[in-house]
């Protein structure tokens, strides 16, 4: 998709930097009132990092607590509040906005050759709504916390819990609207703002995956809003919807909740797949294998993802025949994910592969996502799920997808586009080290949890029988390594802001349109509207060693 008609990247001036989106103004107001998609992406980056830190501390406390089978570090109430904080913040205030709202906001318009998203003001509004939701969630935490888990199962959440459920539900409810607006904005942007020549099949696969993600965001999130509103109606006014004592049906809540939350799992992985589809061709210097199949597998995942929610409910007392259908569909939805993994692997064949930090994260993603996906088959399989459901096996499985998949991809993407975002290179050696530490620490943390699940250790247990202790100790030890893997990039990224080498427009010698403009990009992205005349991922393994860091 090289923009052939573009002028070659301007040489880096020796004295004065060209004006870019960061240097146009430095006032606080220029950030808080910005409608520039790039700045909004950065606002989101800082916001989600804030929530990530809180949620990580909750996780760290839990892991420390679980060293001892009798508990003792915190009370049961506190433990229950910690895993609720961890789940709610990580899911709705970190993972869901992570790649879409940060990298998506920053990169999508540039990738398709646009000056901004379709609705820049709505884009800014989505950030304010997100912060509003976050304030509700923080209020709920500060005023005493919530002990329902991120799943808010009724009638516990609606009638029995004595904690600040409504405030937390309100936070999630409000944040949901920011997700909807972001999704809507992306859909319209991708439909209407593509540069001349940027046909649907010249779109980078990152766009295909975020398009699919946006469709899920727009269609699924309203159901979450309805579910939480009904929950609050029952809790506040005693209107019987879910509590059988009031004439309701508690399993109805699970249907509604998972009708949103299963597609939401794909909100939390499809963007990661998109990032990997960008990184692998670039560092293998190969056109991606099976472009159309990778693109349509994203769409297939988005569609099928709406039809599998009942696999969270095989032992919930839903009909066994419903269980059959949901199991069958869950097996089918695994196929498009497998197709992607096969195509990424095939892309490497006869490539010219370098192992820069983004590529290391991409390799890590494939490894961990593959394990996460394969263990998903255990849970889709009815007879096996009865034993494994609600055990640590499930915890391990979804962390392999959410953290091993999505967070690895987010880190990979952040390293890949960091030079574009900041104009500076991060220290490459430190980057590789952090990727390696993250990969090792992650496996150390979560692999023992598969074994705990096999053995029947239920999740959300504050105390546990002593025979499980050895695996919890391993897991906690791993978590400390993982913590180092996450802390390192924060340090060297901040360091690179001032001290990093200048990146130049295209340090990776990549093909996307976003690389055909200076780093950091000017406020309007492109001096002239680019015209696309080539196919995507037009890489060649024969090209000369790239001239990095001009």
């Amino acid at each position, binding site marked *: 998709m090289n923009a052939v008609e573009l002028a070659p990247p301007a040489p880096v001036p020796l004295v004065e930097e060209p004006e870019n989106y960061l240097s146009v103004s430095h006032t606080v107001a220029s950030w808080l009132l910005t409608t520039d998609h790039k700045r909004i992406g950065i606002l989101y980056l800082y916001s989600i990092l804030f929530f990530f830190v809180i949620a990580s501390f909750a996780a760290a406390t839990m892991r420390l607590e679980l060293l001892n089978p009798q508990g003792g570090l915190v009370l049961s109430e506190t433990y229950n509040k910690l895993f609720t904080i961890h789940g709610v913040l990580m899911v709705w205030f970190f993972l869901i906005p992570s790649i879409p709202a940060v990298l998506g906001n920053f990169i999508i318009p540039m990738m398709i050759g646009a000056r901004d998203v379709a609705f820049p003001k709505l884009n800014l509004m989505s950030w304010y709504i997100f912060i509003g939701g976050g304030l509700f969630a923080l209020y709920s935490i500060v005023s005493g916390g919530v002990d329902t888990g991120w799943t808010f199962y009724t009638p516990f959440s609606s009638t029995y819990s004595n904690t600040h459920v409504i405030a937390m539900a309100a936070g999630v409810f409000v944040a949901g609207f920011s997700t909807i607006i972001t999704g809507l904005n992306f859909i319209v942007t991708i439909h209407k703002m593509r540069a001349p020549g940027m046909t649907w099949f010249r779109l980078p696969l990152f766009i295909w995956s975020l398009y699919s993600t946006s469709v899920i965001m727009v269609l699924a999130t309203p159901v979450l809003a309805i579910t939480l509103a009904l929950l609050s109606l029952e809790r506040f006014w005693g209107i019987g919807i879910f509590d059988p004592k009031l004439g309701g049906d508690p399993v109805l809540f699970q249907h509604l909740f998972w009708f949103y939350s299963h597609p939401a799992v794909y909100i939390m992985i499809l963007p990661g797949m998109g990032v990997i589809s960008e990184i692998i061709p670039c560092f293998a210097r190969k056109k991606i294998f*099976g472009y159309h199949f990778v693109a349509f597998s994203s769409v297939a995942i988005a569609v099928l993802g709406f039809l599998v929610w009942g696999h969270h409910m095989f032992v919930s007392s839903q009909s066994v025949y419903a269980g059959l259908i949901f199991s069958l569909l869950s097996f089918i939805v695994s196929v498009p994910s497998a197709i992607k993994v096969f195509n990424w692997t095939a892309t490497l*064949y006869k490539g010219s592969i370098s192992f820069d930090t983004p590529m290391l994260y991409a390799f890590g993603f494939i490894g961990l996502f593959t394990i996460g996906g394969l263990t998903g088959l255990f849970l889709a399989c009815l007879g096996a799920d009865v034993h494994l459901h609600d055990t640590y096996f499930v915890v391990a499985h979804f962390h392999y997808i959410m953290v091993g998949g999505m967070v690895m991809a987010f880190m990979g993407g952040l390293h890949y586009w960091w030079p574009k975002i900041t104009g500076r290179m991060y220290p490459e050696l430190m980057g590789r080290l952090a990727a390696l530490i993250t990969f090792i620490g992650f496996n150390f943390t979560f692999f023992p949890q598969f074994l705990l699940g096999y053995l029947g250790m239920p999740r*959300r247990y504050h105390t546990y029988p002593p025979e499980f202790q050895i695996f919890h100790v391993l897991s906690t030890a791993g978590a400390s390594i993982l913590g180092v893997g996450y802390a390192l990039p924060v340090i060297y990224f901040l360091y690179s802001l001032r001290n990093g080498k200048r990146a130049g427009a295209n340090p990776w010698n990549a093909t996307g349109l976003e690389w055909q403009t200076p780093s950091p990009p000017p406020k309007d992205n492109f001096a002239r509207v680019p015209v696309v005349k080539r196919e995507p991922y037009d890489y060649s393994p024969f090209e000369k060693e790239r001239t990095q860091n001009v």
Partner: protein
Amino acid sequence: MNLLPGQASSVAPEVDYLLLFLTGLSLFFMALIFLPLAFFAFKYRRGANADRTPPRVTEWKLEVTWTVIPLFLMMGIFTWGASVYFNIERPPADAIEINVVGKQWMWKVQHQEGVREINEIHVPVGRTVRLVMTSQDVIHSLFIPAFRIKQDVVPGKYTTEWFNATKPGNYHLFCSQFCGTDHARMIGRVIVLGESAYESWLASNSSGGTLAVAGAKLFTELGCSGCHGENSKVRAPPLEGVYGKPVPLDGGAFQIADDKYIRDCILQENHVHVAGYEPVMPTFKGHVSEEELMDLIAYIKSLGGGK
């Protein structure tokens, strides 16, 4: 070190074969993906001398291959998993029924013989046991890892799970659905006894009468017999022989008089309008506990009927 809890039920080996197969399959797929990945990464590393002429492969043939083969494989695992699931879900006939009521944060267990226990279930080895479960507050889930079974215990309805214990011993019983503050302490033991040990345990622990006897007493105390009894003035449907049979309703429909039906009739005002009778049954909501409801059902069951 064992990576699975001991097998102690008739379905446990079936589940373990499935788990073993899935583990093997995962290892196979990991090898299938990771080995080429590592090989390509090494062979085609930048700077290495390798043949990089564009490969001549027909893309769609490869795509169809790695779409269709996994798809068939998936259908196979689905079928196997579903058949094991049906074995887990469908109890064989002639089961010993034990009632379980979950509440924050304990398991209350009632044997038909009248023995009541908390957080412990004594069962005989080699006999099919069916747990009939409900919750008096939030959703719980009764999980016995050694038996490889788990079932949510849901307020407002009865769920069941069954097992046939194959080895005497003590086994973990966990609540696996988060239910509030002391969720992690809602644990207990399933104690599997040999046939004779079980009989003597029953004999030495049953002090009062059976559940049906307790139910009969309640039936009088709550005034049910005033209408449903033989000499009552108010005409209400007789309950003899009703259990498990279809009840004709006003309007021509039928409903099977199972546990849930009886429960709803007691708790909900005019839950049904039985054909030929005035719908005048009041609600007993708030006047009967979950255990008492189960006693009443045991009594009505003892009046005959069944499938």
